[in-house]
């Protein structure tokens, strides 16, 4: 009954009302039909607030600027390189990996693929590692975590909102790099039908669609490190420490992935199938490696997401 006022009148709600006979006061709350019991969609407010908090940080903007700058740098370099009669790339280079850079001067759309191929190994996951690593640890270090929890955000709910906002950042960061590459590519180079890695030709419109699909796959490739970063973030109260650890793990994994003697563990590294997105540019598209990549990312998300949840819901918040 204490919640029976309309929201505008809530300020007047006197606490003394609570001393009445219903000993089970709080339980009576959801039953108060005329009141404003919490609605399920109100909970989205926390997610929206998380997004605002992530994207209004100057650091996030700086990371996005770097991600937009890499394709620009690549595009300008290729343009300068090929000014005096450019080298014409001879189609696909086989399975050695995407060498889209050679096709950029022929078709500006390839700068999107080249840009993503250039940022995926380090810049993109680093940006995600910074944002994910800071997600919980940064709030703990700043002391804001305790106020969110007594608001009460709820530990599981807060962690979920944080992971969701990190995933949105993964997508946004990838799109920033892709769109920047697209604009630079279209501005500096001729654009036309796309020659696939298999040698066939597809129209530009389909090439654009495949570029979008590739961007989505690249964003999905970051799901694993996002979960890893979030887990690291729940372990420490130092935002910087969590970021450094996450980025350090990324570098370590990248190195291990490139040591042939360690091939036994490589299929389990979250970076191992990252460049599988190039298979989208085959005709027909081969999905095996892409499927493995998505499965591996889901596995990492499940394992480290659960670990983060287990840790965060049981830990003492002393900062």
């Amino acid at each position, binding site marked *: 009954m204490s919640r029976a006022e309309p*929201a*505008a009148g*809530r*300020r*007047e*709600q*006197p*606490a*003394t009302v*609570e*001393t009445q006979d219903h*000993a089970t*006061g*709080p339980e009576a*709350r959801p039953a108060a039909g005329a009141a*404003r019991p*919490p609605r399920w969609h*109100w*909970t989205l*407010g*926390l997610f*929206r*607030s998380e997004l*605002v*908090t992530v994207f*209004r*940080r*100057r650091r996030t903007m700086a990371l996005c600027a770097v991600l937009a700058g890499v394709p620009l740098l690549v595009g300008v370099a290729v343009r300068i390189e090929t000014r005096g009669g450019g080298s014409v790339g001879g189609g696909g280079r086989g399975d050695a990996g995407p060498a889209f850079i050679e096709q950029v001067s022929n078709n500006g759309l390839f700068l999107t693929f080249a840009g993503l191929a250039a940022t995926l190994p380090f810049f993109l996951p680093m940006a995600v590692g910074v944002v994910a690593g800071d997600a919980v640890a940064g709030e703990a270090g*700043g*002391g*804001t975590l*305790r*106020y*969110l*929890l*007594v*608001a*009460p*955000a*709820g530990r599981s*709910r*807060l962690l979920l909102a944080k992971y969701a906002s990190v995933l949105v950042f993964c997508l946004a960061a990838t799109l920033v790099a892709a769109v920047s590459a697209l604009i630079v590519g279209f501005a500096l180079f001729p654009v036309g039908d796309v020659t696939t890695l298999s040698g066939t030709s597809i129209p530009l419109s389909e090439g654009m669609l495949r570029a979008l699909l590739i961007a989505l796959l690249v964003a999905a490739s970051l799901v694993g490190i996002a979960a890893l970063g979030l887990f690291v973030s729940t372990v420490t109260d130092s935002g910087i420490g969590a970021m450094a650890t996450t980025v350090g793990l990324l570098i370590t994994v990248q190195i291990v992935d490139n040591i042939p003697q360690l091939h036994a563990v490589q299929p389990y590294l979250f970076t191992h199938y990252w460049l599988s997105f190039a298979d989208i540019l085959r005709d027909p598209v081969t999905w095996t490696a892409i499927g493995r990549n998505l499965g591996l990312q889901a596995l990492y998300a499940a394992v480290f997401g659960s670990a983060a949840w287990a840790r965060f819901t*049981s830990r*003492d*918040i*002393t900062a």
Partner: protein
Amino acid sequence: MAQPTAAADVVIETRGLAKQYRGTLAVDGIDLRVPRGSVFGFLGPNGSGKTTTIRMLMGLIAPTAGTARVLDRPMPRAARAVLPRVGALIEGPALYGFLSGRDNLVRYDSADPTADPRTRAARVDAALDRVGLAAASGKKAKAYSLGMKQRLGLAAALLQPRELLVLDEPTNGLDPQGMREIRALVRELAADGTTVFLSSHLLDEIEQVCTHAAVMARGRLITQGPVEELAAGTHGRLAVTGPDPAEARRVLAGFGVTGLTADGDRVTGDLPADPAAVPDLAEINAALVAAGVRVRGFGRERASLEDAFVALTGEGFDVAG
């Protein structure tokens, strides 16, 4: 006030609440009872376990042993039902420096699942108004002074009408004017029926605003109860000031006043502990006059909480545990 009260009249109740950090007991089995409607002072030197207790009450850390009930629900299990009705300021304010004061409050309000987003702006404005920050609400929080940050933290605690306010050292970092304002705000909130649980290491702060108090030292709860009872634990002393201390002493002794000491022209002594034996002060005064004792000042001095604390702990107050 000493009579037993029903559970509904207690907003915080702990039983054997304890917290151990790597071998050291920060809180050692305390039984705390905070009556509804009180302004409850939680007193103790720095490091005596006050903040750890508050964190356990707010569900931020799990107790090693014992139970805590807040607003008649177990914590931390019922945190989701309890905490929307509790406003808290814990170990100073924490803000997002890159957000404006207003946006900080919007963020904290969004975190509350019981907060209606449609009335969020009105709530935030009202809270800013209440702590006198409306004019500075557009400024980035990192540009705030410590006092302004403290006010913003208070505003976050006041976003919703609360049944219980937990304020951990709310006047830390404030100038005397700011302290007065906080005390006025606490009294105002208490008058509205909000129970205020106020921790402090400043005795006079507690003495000025609190109706009840508890004293912590080295993780233990030494005492709790109405402030006047705590202070009464160390008896008030009768004091006579005048140019004839020796005569005054003789007259007072005749009335059964014990422990008489003379300090210059001032004589003080303890009234009998048995209330029935306490003589009427007016009689003593008349006797002093009849005996020709010239009196400049006469009266009973109320024992302060500081006296009570020293009496309870047998040590100075500023010792860090």
